[in-house]
């Protein structure tokens, strides 16, 4: 009996994870009707630059979703609109220079305002880094996350004033320097990541 069950579960899991030709292994599920489920930033070559998930998924599932979505979005032609249906979600994406900003929202959500959310995030990055480019986000990815986390929380905007978001980041950065100044181990060296 045990042998059978082991074999059975393996057979099942292998099949389950192995990637059936048909593809769709899971649906993410609707949490409420208005929620951003995740945001992805990726380059034109499909390299991931930032991933923010607002729903619980395993690493494997995230990777699969990312791979599929990146492929789908990169295959879109320039003349197409910024929205597409994907599984039971709506995808809103926009390209800024070499980076694609891609959000997954739910059925009842407003696609047009999501475009504004994306735009606001880009403006924040631009103000912070001074004419932001992809390299800034590659080399300072943790800061990109910090800025995002001051703008959105749980997939919703927490602050609608550009000024206030940037001020909070500025203060937090200062705090980081000040406290670390007090605990400097080696005189004369500035401690950085």
């Amino acid at each position, binding site marked *: 009996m045990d042998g059978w069950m082991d074999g059975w579960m393996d057979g099942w899991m292998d099949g389950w994870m192995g990637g059936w030709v048909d593809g769709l292994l899971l649906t993410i599920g609707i949490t409420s009707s208005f929620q951003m489920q995740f945001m992805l930033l990726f380059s034109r070559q499909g390299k991931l630059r930032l991933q923010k998930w607002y729903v619980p998924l395993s690493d494997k599932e995230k990777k699969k979703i990312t791979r599929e979505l990146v492929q789908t979005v990169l295959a879109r032609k320039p003349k197409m609109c910024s929205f597409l249906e994907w599984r039971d979600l709506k995808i809103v994406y926009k390209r800024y220079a070499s980076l694609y900003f891609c959000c997954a929202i739910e059925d009842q959500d407003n696609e047009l305002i999501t475009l504004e959310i994306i735009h606001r995030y880009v403006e924040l990055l631009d103000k912070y880094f001074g004419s932001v480019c992809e390299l800034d986000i590659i080399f300072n990815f943790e800061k990109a996350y*910090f800025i995002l986390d001051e703008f959105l*929380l749980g997939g919703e905007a927490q602050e*609608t004033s550009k000024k206030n978001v940037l001020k909070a980041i500025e203060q937090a950065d200062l705090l980081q320097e000040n406290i670390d100044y007090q605990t400097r181990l080696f005189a004369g060296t500035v401690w950085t990541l």
Partner: protein
Amino acid sequence: WVCHTPIRLRELIRTIRTARTQAEEREMIQKECAAIRSSFREEDNTYRCRNVAKLLYMHMLGYPAHFGQLECLKLIASQKFTDKRIGYLGAMLLLDERQDVHLLMTNCIKNDLNHSTQYVQGLALCTLGCMGSSEMCRDLAGEVEKLLKTSNSYLRKKAALCAVHVIRKVPELMEMFLPATKNLLSEKNHGVLHTSVVLLTEMCERSPDMLAHFRKLVPQLVRILKNLIMSGYSPEHDVSGISDPFLQVRILRLLRILGKGDDDSSEAMNDILAQVATNTETSKNVGNAILYETVLTIMDIKSESGLRVLAINILGRFLLNNDKNIRYVALTSLLKTVQTDHNAVQRHRSTIVDCLKDLDVSIKRRAMELSFALVNGNNIRGMMKELLYFLDSCDPEFKADCASGVFLAAEKYAPSKRWHIDTIMRVLTTAGSYVRDDSVPNLIQLITNSVEMHAYTVQRLYKALLDDISQQPLVQVASWCIGEYGDLLISGQCEEEEPIQVTEDEVLDVLEGLLVSNLSSPVTRGYSLTAIMKLSTRFSSVNRIKKVVSIYGSSIDVELQQRAVEYNGNDLLDLLGGNDVPVIPTTMPTKPASAGGELLDLLGDLSLGIPPMTAYNKNGLKIDFTFERANPNPNVAVITIHASNSTEADMTDFVFQAAVPKTFQLQLLSPSSNVVPALNQGTVTQVIRVLNQQKLRMRIKLTYIHKGSAVQDLAEVNNFPPQSWQ
């Protein structure tokens, strides 16, 4: 003693980016991970932060980072702000509620929620609100509720969104946040206002009691919205001349929920909605985003008819916008309202039809769906002209749906029988290969019923066959018609148009041509052989017909062989007797068809002796298996599943999965479709290949959407016929 200061983050990023190959990158990563692991083992506090940051970078590249999970917890517990910042970021990226270690965060978060520095409190609120599990939410809801009442707006706004997450995870906790919502809307701070509206929306959506309770906020919400619109330029919240569009949209959404189904609330918001609808600047996306939300609200609440017309007109204007995105949302919204506000949407019909020519696939699809929804008895001729033109030129992915839509519309609104037949002809000749299998029997039925059109129909179909025999549905319908009405064809009785002159031999030439042609599928061959048989009662060239039959009596194609053999001889007339039931095979020619008649029982099972079986039959979903042995490997069983649906609603997003015990190997090919149409109007087929030498057992998993709900079922299949695995 070697001093090994861990390499800095940016340095590492720079180094990794110099890798020229995947292998080179992997090597660098592995080296660094080893260094980081040993640093972790040494419990190095100084560089833990740097090491975790590097780990997060490598994680983003796709490499495993689970060994850093505990380190994130240590960082969170540290007193250094940098540590906390990276620690919480790491927790959000590497930990989720499936990991047990996740719960170890609870105490740290609790402490940090009470920290003296608001930025630390902020980190804790953000993390909890982003990925807190139900247990964590239960433990910390009290802290969140406290912070929801603070006068510090920086914290209050975060606490509101954190509360939203708590409610989503543990809906029963909603009540405890009620007192704190008392004066949320009196806030001047836009961040707090925005997040408060989000919180109120969440509560109203989840609880009818809350909804009733918060209806009293409508006047206040209307006032806030009014101030936003009327107030002058506010640099802090301005986006292209509009004041805080994010807040405006959220308020409009909350008003929608509060006004729905409630006369008083709807009336109270009527004016402000009209104001927003008429005064919002439409030159940029941001204005249109607000208008869009306004339209959605107007359509959902109990608005005056004037307001509804205003909303539809806004959508009509959206359709003319240069911006694709705007056209897209317009079509989506119109599709939602076309049933309730049919006349208003009709006024924009020509604009909608123009969208059929759009380059964007999503826009085209919506325009097509909307166009079909707008077809009625008055506009059928004009609309059908446009839709048939669309059918001619559209991408293959649309053709099947469009053809089905045309058939349905024609059936409902055809102004004359002749028009109806002509329309069907047009579809069969231009998109014949994309027409769904189930259309063939439906069309045959239709033609049967149009008694006065028989001569015209058979003539047109015959002429179509002379042009093109590659489109199977067309050929099948044509064959059937000729078999049925061949006498009318040769007698030149057509009234509708100039009758053609054709002899019995010419007709039989055409039908025989179908039998031998490479282009004909086995199903089509079946149709044409049947037609030839039937003509033996209508034509005089019975000898020729018998000759054809005897040829096919020894045909390699088993199905034709059986059919021919059974039809031959004197049984012929008896079998064809009074019930001329068309042969209606389903997608697989080896499966016996669903329509009745002794004809079909004779076909029996043609798949080399392995009987078919029913693997699953529940809730209207039936899955049959048919079997073949693969060539050249006889140990591989090739199973075709046939899924059919006897309920009155389609089963969409149908996914069939199978698993077998470890000793087997399983391969699943692509399914024919993922919609199982209602009322047995078609089947979904999929091929499974199993390598086996033992008794076959299988577990299947079915998921689909039926009448709006997701259905999932697991079943074991044990009743495989012995021949399938021996």
